[in-house]
């Protein structure tokens, strides 16, 4: 499994959301299809998994965004890893993640 989530970005729209499963996992959001703005985990506390959470993002943030996701039954540790990798690569958290997401985060230096 690759350390970085480097799948192609997809447009976040109603059709894309409707096609998603309700599984657990992680997703990233972008406003330009290149820059990671948020890294989000979808765990068992979500009502409808990835589909439900990305539907919520679409409703709250509106059209024009991009997303990519990874179905993963261990969303918590995968989210922590993606956050650490992002901080190692870019020197900070994604812009839309709240500062508290960085609390207690470890240090990675991925190859």
């Amino acid at each position: 499994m690759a350390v970085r989530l480097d799948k192609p970005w997809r447009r976040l729209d109603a059709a894309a959301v409707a096609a998603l499963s309700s599984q657990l996992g992680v997703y990233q959001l972008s406003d330009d299809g290149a820059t990671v703005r948020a890294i989000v985990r979808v765990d068992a506390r979500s009502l409808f998994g990835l589909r439900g959470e990305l539907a919520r993002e679409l409703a709250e943030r509106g059209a024009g965004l991009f997303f990519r996701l990874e179905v993963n039954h261990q969303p918590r540790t995968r989210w922590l890893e993606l956050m650490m990798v992002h901080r190692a690569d870019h020197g900070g958290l994604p812009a839309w993640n709240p500062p508290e997401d960085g609390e207690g985060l470890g240090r990675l230096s991925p190859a």
Partner: protein
Amino acid sequence: MDLSLTDEQKLIVDQVRRFVREEIVPLEDGLDPDADSLPPEDHERLAGRVAEMGLYGLDIPPEFGGPDVDIVTRTLLAIEMSQHRAGLYAPCYNVFGGAGLAQMFEANDDQKQRFLYPMLRGEKKTFFGLTEPSGGSDPARAIQTRAVRDGEEWVIDGAKMFISGADRADFGLVFARTDPGKGRAGVTCFIVETDTPGFHVRRIVHTLRAARYATELQFEDMRVPHANVLGQVNGGFAIANDRVSRQRIPYAATCIGVAVKAQELAIEYAGLRETFGDKLAHRQGIQWMVVENEIDIRQALWITLAAADKARRGEPFRTDSALAKIVATEASGRVVDRAMQIHGGYGVTKDLPFERWYREMRIRRIGEGPNEVQRHIVARDLFGSPLR
């Protein structure tokens, strides 16, 4: 052999049991199903409660400020402290504190000042770096990480696998080969600070244990001062081995605690749930599963307490702790499996703790030395023959 608890043990066990049920379990309703920590304010509040109870830092030796609780009582408490959803790998979410790296008690005075005391004060976090990509069950042969002396420094190159906490640690113990021709007598333990150039945490290793992850480390021309050698050069194997032997008793105890809780939930549910006009508790198939659970729990309990009692008396307990590790991990796995079965569909949901216990308990037959290696240890002792 007196199997009864002393009045003091009864008092402390009851105190911790109430603490778990009244303080820890209710908090889990608001936590993620795979959470391994409490919000800081809750952690601080509960650690304060534990300190008031006089039980903070249970496994810290009294000469270093620990509460001087013997290993049998600590085993009984470990069984209590793990009786909640996160209990197997985060008993009471670590509000009871701990000694961290017990090997550091063997450090010299300078190392104690720089590493041990900050660790005990909670100012420095640690990791234990033994297992390598080439294996962990046979460290004497598997360790390929090399350390070569260069004046007053050692240059370390290599990799470590399945290392917990390294990404958040301030320092850790790294075992490296310092004399390639000497097998287990050619391994040295180094205290390595994680801000040392050449120290890399390359990735998280994702496993069944969703709450607490392991990491993969790489060392590239990492220079460590000779003053950071723990113990003697080429004396690292004994340090590693000692740690692994000591860990088996609490490792077994936490499995038993989870099994006890799973059994309690199974009995409660069987008394409530009705199928085909009668309660599950009245079905012989269910009754026998509960009885099998009880057999497993009691066997694991007594064999683990017997090992702890030998350790308390200062007698050799390697075989006993290996047996405890085998029996407790395998028996507790069966108990969780049966309790899950009794709960039917709900048993496999994240609404209940069984699915987390089921995943995490599976690791226990591998962690801290796979059960096959434990059997090897027991066989070696029974036949009186050394490892080849």
